[in-house]
């Protein structure tokens, strides 16, 4: 094969003529993120995450073969943003509750989320009800997580060469469906192969996913040296008067508050420069003074949450959504794909512990009303910052707070945040 030279973002690169761009770029030390691209499979061109420009025309990088003199753009601001947006679309289109996902930490999609620095999605979550199909012999397909990359369709076949997966429907209703008859013919190894090539947690093998994790958390990065020292905070002591912080937990699990306390003794340093007003940490129930910053854990699932949130907006200069639930609903939003009536019936009338023939759903003027869905905070009031994570770690939260309070530039480094 002939060697050719081409350019990526102005850098001279060489490769074999006709080589796939993704591979060619890799050899030249340039990483182009992909989700559907898979080794020997013909380019699928479905996820579009690898969108690049070739001589000014956009094209999915995986469908491009390099040729002499090509001028390729990969990491321009426009393309970086488009890539991030496409991933965000995947997050809002499916229902990705990473903390309860078997693949978390070993998930290529989640990893790309970190990699591209998604803190919150610019698009509203669509919360479409999607099925989890556990009918097959070995495999469970969780449609909530499928990104329709087509890898399984092209790659997974029975020994006779028949497909096991295929798309059904079209448009926004497109699904990856499974052929039960063919699936039953898969060997254990073939089934596990399907699970491993899936870039998300959509394909699972029964008995292989719970109990012990089926993969390593290969995308975890340690962040030991990144811990901030609270001594540094003290330098603000002399120059500023104490800043006031308020916190609350709405429809959350208090995990984010637990996480805040994880700074351990650091909190002692912290309270030298800040004081807490309304917060479960101080047990102050009502605002006594206007605050600089409000930290909100959890989204809004009932009328009381809304009132509290609005009160925070009124009493705080800056509002920060802390954690996934606050940012987009998180785990409580699992109910968003199910009609409210079913939820209430399941909880109060048909649950294992409810009385036989129970017909009353509790309601009293003192009990907050349940909203039709769990709302993210920024759907209800204006939110100034988002701290992703489930929960975000302590250093991370206080890092952000510190930087906001003392007006220093700060952007979150990849290893520091986690969706799970």
């Amino acid at each position, binding site marked *: 094969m002939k060697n050719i030279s081409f350019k990526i973002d102005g850098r001279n690169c060489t490769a074999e003529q006709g080589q796939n761009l993704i591979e060619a770029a890799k050899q030249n030390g340039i990483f182009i993120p992909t989700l559907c691209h898979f080794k020997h499979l*013909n380019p*699928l*061109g*479905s996820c*579009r*995450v690898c*969108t690049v420009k070739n001589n000014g025309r*956009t094209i*999915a990088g995986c*469908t491009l073969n390099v040729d002499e003199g090509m001028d390729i753009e990969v990491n321009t601001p*426009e393309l970086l*943003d*488009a890539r991030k*947006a*496409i991933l965000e*679309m*995947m997050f809002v*289109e499916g229902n990705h509750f990473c903390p309860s996902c078997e693949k978390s930490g070993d998930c290529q999609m989640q990893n790309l989320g970190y990699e591209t620095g998604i803190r919150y999605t*610019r698009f*509203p979550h*669509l919360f479409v009800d999607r099925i989890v199909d556990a009918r097959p012999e070995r495999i469970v397909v969780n449609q909530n997580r499928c990104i*329709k990359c087509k890898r399984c369709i092209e790659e997974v076949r*029975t020994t006779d060469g*028949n*497909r*096991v*997966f*295929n*798309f*059904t*429907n*079209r*448009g*926004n*209703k*497109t699904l990856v*469906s*499974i*052929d039960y*008859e*063919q699936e039953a013919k898969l060997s254990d190894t073939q089934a596990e192969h399907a699970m491993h090539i899936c870039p998300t947690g959509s394909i699972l093998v029964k008995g292989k996913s719970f109990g012990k994790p089926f993969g390593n958390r290969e995308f975890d990065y340690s962040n030991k040296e990144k811990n901030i020292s609270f001594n540094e905070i003290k330098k603000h002591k002399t120059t500023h008067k104490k800043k006031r912080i308020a916190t609350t937990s709405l429809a959350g699990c208090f995990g984010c508050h637990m996480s805040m306390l994880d700074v351990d003794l650091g909190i002692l340093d912290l309270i030298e420069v800040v004081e807490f007003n309304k917060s479960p940490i101080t047990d102050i129930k009502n605002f006594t003074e206007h605050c600089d910053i409000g930290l909100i854990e959890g989204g809004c699932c009932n*009328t009381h949450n*809304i009132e509290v949130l609005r009160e925070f*907006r009124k009493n705080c200069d800056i509002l920060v959504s802390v954690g996934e639930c606050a940012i987009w609903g998180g785990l409580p939003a699992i109910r968003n794909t199910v009609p*409210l*009536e079913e939820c*209430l019936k399941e909880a109060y*009338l048909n649950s294992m512990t409810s009385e036989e023939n129970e017909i*009353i*759903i509790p*309601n009293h003027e003192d009990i907050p*009303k349940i*909203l*039709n*869905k769990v*709302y993210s905070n*920024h759907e*209800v*009031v*204006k939110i100034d910052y988002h701290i992703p994570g489930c929960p975000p770690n302590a250093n991370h939260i206080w890092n952000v707070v510190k930087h906001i309070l003392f007006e220093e530039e700060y952007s979150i480094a990849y290893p520091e945040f986690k969706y799970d």
Partner: protein
Amino acid sequence: MDRTQLLNKLWEYQHEFGYISKNAISKISKSLQVSNIEIESVISFYHFFHKQPTGKNIIYLNNNIISEIKGFEDIKTTFEKETGCNFNEQGNDEFSLFETSCIGLNDQEPAALINFLPFTDLTPKKVKLIIQKIKNGENLKDFASKTKSKIQYTPKEDKTVLFRPYVMGKSIKEGLKYSSQEVIDKITKSKLLGLGGAFFPAGYKWQSCKNNVDDIKYIICNADEGEPGTFKDRAILQHVPGLLYEGMILAGYATGAKEGIIYLRAEYLYLLPELEKLLEEFYSKNLLGKNILGVEGYDFDIRYQIGAGSYVCGAASALIESMEGRRGEPPVRMWSATKHGFKHKPTVVNNVETLAYASRIIELGEDFFLSLGTEESPGTKLISISGDVAKPGIYEIEYGTSFKKLLGIEMSQATAPYFLQVSGPSGDCINSSEFDRKICKEDLLCGGALMVFNRNRDILQIFRNFMEFFKEESCGVCTPCRAGNFILTEKVKKIQRGLCSQEDLDDIKQWGKIIKLSSRCGLGKTSPNSLMMAIDKFPDYFNIKIAPSNEDQHVEFDMENAIHEFDSIIKDTQL
């Protein structure tokens, strides 16, 4: 069975039983030696194939925007009331009701297909009558509507190209005076553009198909006119179908192809009997078949392939996928169709109108064609006009005609035109300051649809209709189009709920740009176009939509709405 026969096989079952059963699926998959899911995947891609039993009478009611403004909702409820069925559900033994996107009858809306026969200009009264007749056991064929569109305008004197009197075989005889290369040269010289909406030079396609040497080549006619608002191809099929056949036969002569296939959308199935009769006449006159008109070795056959309800199949590459018995997903393209097209053989895919013009160009000479229209786009063009005009129908106009003229008293007689949608939802919208613009390559090309809306029409309603259309018709294979059009639909709905800020409008432009940038095929690359344009072109309209600013201006939350559901559930469960 050969995979290319799959769609036909599915149609057999669909027509005979009203659906394609599990059993049928197994049978088909066995004979094709593929898994069941592969067949199901094809069935569920196409709108007109059903996996559940349907009633004896399947009613498809058009839900495009023109239908909507001409009374769709009333018609829909009348159908539901009269049949006792709900739309988009399985229905009963007698009836099944479905909505469907544009069926190419925009000049006669609201319109529906009942067992693929057309019923147009529907009113609640008419619907009642139709259902009554069906229930009385009358034959649908006896009272189906006549759909022939009115040709409202043709250029004066002998400037008319398409709709001048047609003499069978004239173009072929004329064409045979030249060598195949000369025929292509004539088409190239005439600057004939692809008239399905992509405007790719026709001569170039023919030439490159000719140059790709192979034993088998195909001429495919794209009669899958799915762009909402377009019905000009139907007009050709009803008024001058012979031109289409001759265009194909000439294309075969020019490129060396011996087989022609017309991919006809199922929405036009009712045209098929007439069209096939004409085909026979062509055979009997030796204009088709072996040694055409006595020319040794000049063989050409034409057959029909019926589509099954999918907009995206109107794109040449998806159309080929569909003909090969697969989902109509536009493939990742490594070659052009003229090199590796249908069955991997060199293939020309031309639109109905393009082929009809090709035939006229050979018949009348390219110089005549070049004397009409504009420098870059010579000749005439068919425009199908619908909406708020007194004279909806077909207009054959010279390129270079302005919108103002089209809307004026001598032509369509629009009433207070305000918003024009040119070339369908994937095209451009224009406002009144642009009515002087001209239809031609130098200014604005038009694929064939012109939808006119007056001042009283709600622009957001138009776009909600368009976006829902794209959301459903996206093939679903790539993220930005599948999810992006869904997201934009939700955004339009939000603005319709009265929750609009400058930010929302900016979002639309930003997000639209990303969808356009990264989608795989033309559908996603054009779907947000018009919506994005409208924001700039209709500032008066959108500015009023923006809610007065306050602290929570960009925030969507309506407490009353949020607790309404709880309240109503609780009401029924308390003591």
